C-alpha cells in the first residue's frame, strides 16, 4: 500500500511537470498579447515597452526557466488585464464553479443510481424503456443548447427564475456562496440543472449496464439459490458489484464537469473560473490561462488518486502495489 502511494505520488509529480511544460509551450504559441492589449495605433516602441513589462522580451528558454521557478514557488504570474496574481483571480472564482459542479453531481447521483438499478433489473418494462430513451435524449443534447432552452422557458416565457449572475451571496471563510440565500438558490437552479442533465444520463446508463452484466453472473444465481429475496439480491449482491465502474467514472466526470462548467457559466453569466478562462482566451491573458490549466490538471490528478484509493475500498480484489 505504502509502495503504491509513493509510486503514485511520483507519477503525479511527473504528470504535472509534463502538463506544465506542454501548457507553457502551447500558450506561447498564442498571439502576441501586447498587440491585442494596446490600441491598434500603438507605436513599435510602445509595444516593446509593454512586452518588457509582461516579461516577454527574454528568450523562450529564459521565460520557461523563470516559469518553472515561479511555479515551484506557487506563483503563476500576474494577469495582463487585471494586474493581479492569476492564482488569486482563479481562487476567487473557484467557489462559484465548485458550487454548481457539486450541486450538479449531487443531483445526478441522487437520481441516476436508483433509476439505473431499476432499469438494469427490469430491462423490459415500459417505464425502463421510457427512462432509457429519455437518457439517450439527454446524452445527445448539447449542454449549451439545453441551457438556452431553459432560459427561454423559465426566464423569458415564465419569468420564474433569473437567467444570469449569482444573486445574493453570503461570505463564509472568505468564500462567496450562493446557496445560503433564497435569491442565490434561485440563481443556482438553472445552471446546476443544465450541468447535471448529461451527467445524470451517463451515470444512469453506466449503472444500468453494470447491473445487467452483474445480474448474469453465477453468484447472483447462487444467491437466489440460497433463498435471498429478489430485493436483497438486487441491492445486497448486485449493486455493490455494479457500482464499481460507476465510482471510477464518478471521479473522472467530476473533472469533466469542472471543464464543462465553462459553457454553463458562459450561458448564465455565472462568475466562475470557467467564464474567467473563456474571457482570458478571448483577450490572450496568458498567465490566467496557464494558471487555470495548471490548477485544473492538479485537481484532476488528485481526483484520480482519490478514486484509485476509493476503488480498493469497494473492490477487495484490487491489490494496490
Amino acid at each position: 500500500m505504502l509502495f503504491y502511494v509513493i509510486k503514485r505520488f511520483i507519477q503525479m509529480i511527473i504528470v504535472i511537470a509534463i502538463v506544465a511544460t506542454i501548457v507553457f509551450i502551447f500558450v506561447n504559441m498564442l498571439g502576441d498579447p501586447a498587440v491585442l492589449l494596446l490600441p491598434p495605433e500603438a507605436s513599435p516602441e510602445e509595444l516593446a515597452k509593454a512586452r518588457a513589462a509582461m516579461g516577454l522580451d527574454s528568450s523562450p528558454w529564459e521565460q520557461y526557466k523563470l516559469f518553472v521557478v515561479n511555479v515551484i514557488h506557487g506563483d503563476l504570474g500576474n494577469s495582463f488585464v487585471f494586474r493581479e496574481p492569476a492564482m488569486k483571480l482563479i481562487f476567487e472564482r473557484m467557489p462559484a464553479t465548485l458550487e454548481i459542479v457539486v450541486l450538479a453531481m449531487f443531483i445526478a447521483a441522487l437520481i441516476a443510481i436508483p433509476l439505473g438499478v431499476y432499469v438494469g433489473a427490469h430491462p423490459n418494462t415500459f417505464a425502463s424503456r421510457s427512462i432509457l430513451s429519455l437518457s439517450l435524449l439527454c446524452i445527445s443534447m448539447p449542454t449549451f443548447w439545453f441551457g438556452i432552452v431553459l432560459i427561454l422557458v423559465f426566464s423569458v416565457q415564465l419569468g420564474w427564475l433569473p437567467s444570469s449572475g449569482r444573486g445574493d451571496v453570503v461570505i463564509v471563510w472568505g468564500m462567496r456562496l450562493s446557496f445560503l440565500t433564497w435569491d442565490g438558490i434561485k440563481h443556482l437552479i438553472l445552471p446546476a440543472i443544465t450541468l447535471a442533465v448529461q451527467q445524470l444520463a451517463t451515470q444512469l446508463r453506466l449503472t444500468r449496464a453494470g447491473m445487467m452484466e452483474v445480474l448474469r453472473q453465477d453468484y447472483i444465481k447462487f444467491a437466489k439459490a440460497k433463498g435471498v429475496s429478489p430485493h436483497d439480491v438486487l441491492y445486497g449482491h448486485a449493486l455493490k458489484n455494479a457500482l464499481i465502474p460507476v465510482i471510477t467514472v464518478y471521479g473522472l466526470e467530476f473533472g469533466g464537469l469542472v471543464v464543462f462548467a465553462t459553457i454553463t457559466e458562459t450561458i448564465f453569466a455565472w462568475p466562475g473560473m470557467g467564464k474567467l478562462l473563456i474571457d482570458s482566451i478571448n483577450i490572450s491573458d496568458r498567465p490566467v490561462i496557464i494558471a487555470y490549466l495548471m490548477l485544473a490538471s492538479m485537481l484532476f490528478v488528485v481526483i484520480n488518486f482519490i478514486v484509485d484509493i476509493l476503488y480498493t475500498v469497494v473492490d477487495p480484489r484490487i491489490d494496490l502495489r
Partner: protein
Amino acid sequence: MTNIREVRKESEFLLDVRELKTYFHTFKGVVKAVDGVSFSLKRGDILGVVGESGCGKSVTGFSVLRLIDSPGRIEGGEIIFEGDSLLKKSEREMEKIRGNKISMIFQDPMTSLNPVYTIKKQICETLELHGGLRGKEAHNRAVELLRLVGIPSPESRVNYYPHQFSGGMRQRVIIAISLATSPSLIIADEPTTALDVTVQAQLMKRLYQLVKSNNSSMILITHDLSLVSGVSDNIIVMYCGRVIEKGSSESVISMPAHPYTVGLLESIPKMTGERKMLHQISGMVPNPFEMPPGCSFYPRCELGQKICEAEYPRLREIEEGHYVSCHFAGRRNF
C-alpha cells in the same frame, strides 16, 4: 390436520418429479431442454443424473428449485417435494425453501461466490435467512462449517474474500453454505468438474460423508459416469432432454440396456485391464431445433429400425426398478 401432514411427510419419496417440461423460447425456435422427465428420490438416497453437455441435466436441477431464467419456462409437469407441489408455491414460499430445505452446489467455484463480500458474510447470510442466527452465534457456526468441510485454520480464513482462496477451497466454502441449514435435499451440479483429480477425490469424499451424516438426499448432476457409479444409489441417464434409462447404480452400470448407455460406457477408457480400441458412438447430438420425430437417439443408433424413426419409445421396466426407453432394449445381449 397435523396428523395428515406428518403422514404425508413420512411418505417414501422426498422428491417426486413427474413429466417435467422446461422449454426455452429463443429466436430460432423452442428448445425443449427438459421434455417430460420423471424420477423420484428416496430420503437419504443419492441420485446420479448423467448425460453429455446439452442433455438437459442442469436445467432439470435448476427446474426443481424453480430457478429458470427467461427465455426459459417450466411448461408442465409436477414437482412434489416433501408432499407439496413446488410448482404451485408462490415465489415467497420458494424463497423459504431455497437454500433451506433444498440447496444447490454450482459447477464453477470461481464465479459462484460474490467477490465483494467476505466468506463469513456469505455463510452468515444463509444462517440468518433460514436459521435466524446472528452475531457471535452465526460467526461460530460459520467457523464450524468451514472446519467441517476441511478448510484449515477456519477462524482466520472466515474473514477472507473469495479471491484469496483457490478453486478447491472455494468449492468447499460453497459446500459449507449449502450444508449450513442441514437441507433435506442438495442438488450438486457438476460439483468437482472444474477441479483437479486429487482435489476432486477429497471433496467428493467429504461431500459424501457430510450428506450421509446429515441424512440428506442428493442429486448429483455430472457427465462423469465413473464418479457417479462410485457414489450414487440410483442413476438416470439423460439424452436430448429425456430420461432414456434409469435404475439402481449397479444395474445401470453393469447391465446397461439402452444402446446409448452401452455406447457411453464402452467409450470410456479404462484404468485397468487390457487396452483395446474404444467403442465410439458415431455422429453427434442432434440440433435442438431439428429434433428427429421418433427416438432422438435413432440417427446414431446401431439397432435403429423403422419404428424408431416414427415413434418415441416409452420408458418400460425391463427388470425390477430398471427402466429403459428403447424399442429393442432387452431383446439383445450386450
